[in-house]
């Protein structure tokens, strides 16, 4: 099975099951349609007839190259991944999103956390609840060594003393349990001060700094309770934060909506501010809301991804660089096939814990009826629901089975599917369209940069 597309002057053929990426000339790109896993050694007559603008010698030469790729297992590789189905089972929990504050000092209009409180009232997590959550993770992580804890909200800096205490507590248990905690924090930045920055830089392996881009875009939706935009407050703080981290392991992360389909400008604005680790993501919201992205917007958004991809190539060739999260792709050292088959692993290897200690499959499921998996007070978890989430992978999502992008998005976001497509196994069309476009751009960037290496 292959996926072929032309973009920015490159004819790209992805061999879906091996992950091999081929860039072909015009003849190869057309001739590949006449090849298959069991192709004969000699080119079929219909190919000569259809491609008669090329000489027989050229066709034969190209056909031989394609034949060789098939024999090497790099083209038309059959899908026999079913043999790994058994590995898609309930697994130890190794990642936790800790909702340290169901409260926020912003009232961003598009917030999936219902402007900070997830629709269940404003509340901060106590140290006792957080400590039990850490214990729960330690006790349920089996042989996993790397344990990830993301301090999330609402706004986690509103409860930062508890963050500090929990980091200290987790660190105190690492050795005894033979674990390595990796902490991260996602913040809107309003409360960042010298002490907090230094603590984060000492303890957190990654920090996600929320900003949407241009001032007018950011301030249209990222507003304080009195309606004032936060851009002027957060930009100097984020600059200082990144400077103190020596520019390492951070993302400035924003959201684009139907109101700024020209989000390329926001990425470049963030770059002009001095940030080079950037993630700008499509809004997740009810399609009825005016700024929501729908299938109708996919083409326009796709054009913007292309524009950004071309700019990134141009910059790289000029010795500059933007690391755009959704274009990150390592064709040689990416995750193993099992990871890709398992998917995002929410509700199985990854859970969220609320200030009340309630356990949910992930941060986006919090507060949704039927998805509470338990409470860390007794440490019991709904194993039936956990098993159900372990099945939320490309084997069991009908629309993924034949999708060329299945080994990259791995089935996509279960929360988006639940909320906007009616179930975790269902297709959220706009998410798929955008993901496919991002991947085509990411692969094309690799092709363009490889061309330069010659």
């Amino acid at each position, binding site marked *: 099975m292959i996926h072929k597309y032309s973009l920015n002057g490159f004819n790209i053929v992805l061999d879906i*099951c091996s*992950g*091999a*990426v*081929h*860039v*072909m*000339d015009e*003849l*190869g790109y057309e001739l590949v349609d006449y090849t298959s896993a069991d192709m004969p050694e000699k080119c079929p007559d219909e190919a000569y007839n259809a491609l008669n603008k090329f000489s027989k010698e050229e066709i034969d030469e*190209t056909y031989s*190259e394609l034949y060789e790729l098939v024999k090497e*297992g*790099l083209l038309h590789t059959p899908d026999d991944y079913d043999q790994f189905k058994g590995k898609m089972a309930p697994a130890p929990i190794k*990642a936790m*999103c800790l909702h340290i504050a169901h409260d926020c000092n912003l009232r961003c209009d598009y917030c999936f956390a219902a402007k900070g409180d997830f629709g269940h009232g404003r509340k901060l997590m106590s140290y006792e609840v957080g400590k039990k959550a850490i214990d729960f993770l330690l006790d349920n992580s089996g042989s*996993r*060594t*790397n344990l*990830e804890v993301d301090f999330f909200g609402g706004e986690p800096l509103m409860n930062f003393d508890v963050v500090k205490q929990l980091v200290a507590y987790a660190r105190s248990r690492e050795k005894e349990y033979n674990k390595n905690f990796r902490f*991260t924090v*996602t913040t809107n930045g309003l409360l960042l001060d010298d002490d907090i920055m230094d603590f984060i830089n000492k303890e957190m392996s*990654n920090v*996600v700094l929320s900003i949407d881009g241009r001032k007018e875009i950011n301030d249209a939706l990222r507003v304080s309770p009195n309606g004032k935009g936060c851009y002027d407050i957060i930009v100097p703080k984020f600059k200082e934060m990144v400077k103190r981290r020596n520019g390492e392991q951070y*993302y400035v992360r924003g959201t684009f909506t139907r109101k700024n389909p020209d989000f390329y400008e926001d990425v470049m604005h963030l770059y002009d501010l001095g940030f080079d680790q950037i*993630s700008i*993501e*499509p809004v*997740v919201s009810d399609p009825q809301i005016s700024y929501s992205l729908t299938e109708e917007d996919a083409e326009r958004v796709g054009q913007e991804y292309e524009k950004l991809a071309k700019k990134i190539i141009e910059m790289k060739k000029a010795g500059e660089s933007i690391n755009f*999260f*959704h274009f990150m792709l*390592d*064709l040689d*050292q*990416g*995750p*193993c*096939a*099992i*990871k*890709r088959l398992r*998917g*995002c692993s929410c509700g199985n290897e*990854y859970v969220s814990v609320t200030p009340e200690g309630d356990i949910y499959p*992930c*941060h*986006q499921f919090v507060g949704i009826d039927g998805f509470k998996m338990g409470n860390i007070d007794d440490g019991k978890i709904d194993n039936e629901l956990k098993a159900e989430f372990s099945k939320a992978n490309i084997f069991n999502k009908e629309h993924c089975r034949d999708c060329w992008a299945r*080994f*990259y*998005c*791995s*089935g*996509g*976001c279960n929360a*988006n599917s639940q909320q906007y497509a009616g179930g975790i196994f269902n297709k959220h069309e706009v*998410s798929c369209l955008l*993901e496919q476009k*991002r991947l085509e751009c990411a692969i094309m960037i*690799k092709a363009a940069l*490889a061309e330069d290496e010659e």
Partner: protein
Amino acid sequence: MKHVKTLNKTNLKKTAAKGGCSECQTSCQSACKTSCTVANQKCEK
């Protein structure tokens, strides 16, 4: 090859045999939180 340039020769299928250690980062713990891409994570091995 004259007509085809192959960008990578690693075979995804071969990574399955010794894969699945689950030590690598969960996609949503990196930068996304809303739109899943598993393939942009790094292998820890």
